[in-house]
């Protein structure tokens, strides 16, 4: 089963992918690690921030690890480099 999710890239990750957002087909149940690997395959330059980012799924932070994430059509996934607001 796959879902069409909207992937958002911010800060350095957006510079590396050269896109700010795109629709990507992903498994409906996937570990955050496998989700990241899938994005890396689309954008090999993201390897520059490997180990330095987290994801956000439906606007909730998710560490890149074995944790399973459930995804549905239209869900928002973001690549989140270290924050620097303030």
């Amino acid at each position, binding site marked *: 089963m796959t879902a069409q999710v909207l992937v958002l890239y911010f800060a350095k990750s957006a510079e590396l992918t050269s896109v700010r957002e795109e629709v990507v087909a992903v498994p409906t149940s996937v570990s955050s690690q496998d989700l990241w690997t899938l994005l890396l395959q689309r954008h090999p330059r993201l390897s520059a921030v490997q180990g330095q980012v987290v994801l956000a799924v439906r606007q909730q932070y998710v560490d890149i690890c074995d944790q399973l994430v459930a995804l549905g059509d239209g869900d928002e996934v973001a690549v989140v480099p270290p924050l*620097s607001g303030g």
Partner: protein
Amino acid sequence: MSEEPRDVFKLSRDWLSVQEVVDAVSSSTCGAISVFIGTTREDEVEGRKVVGLEYEAYELMAQSEFTRLCAEVRARWPTVTHVCVHHRLGWVKVGEASVAMAISSPHRHDSQQAIQHSISRLKASIPIWKKEVYDTEEASWKENAECSWSSSSREK
């Protein structure tokens, strides 16, 4: 004398008005307003002069993380009345304010403690990013030490 608590968050491409942030939290039940203003210092990094900052945000999530931050602050300091944050987006020249936060409470200790905590939490959890731009036209993305996945946190 009770008043609905206000949590006001605004991302703005314009100059920040401190008075507006203060007015957003003022209340006839509050004797104290604590304010924090963060600005960019004039700085040289490896011989390059910082001329300004370029900010971006995950806007919807920034709003939801702010709501979460306010709930946490109110749980810890129940007398906190209103909270307001204005944060810049886009280009911010050196010397201009990037963020202004105000918190009101009946007595001063609560708003003073709450604002210190809230600024740390903002830097740790609200999805906003800044890139330092130098006079050489080079730029580099900054990382808050407060953010748990920043390189300074990872080294710990």
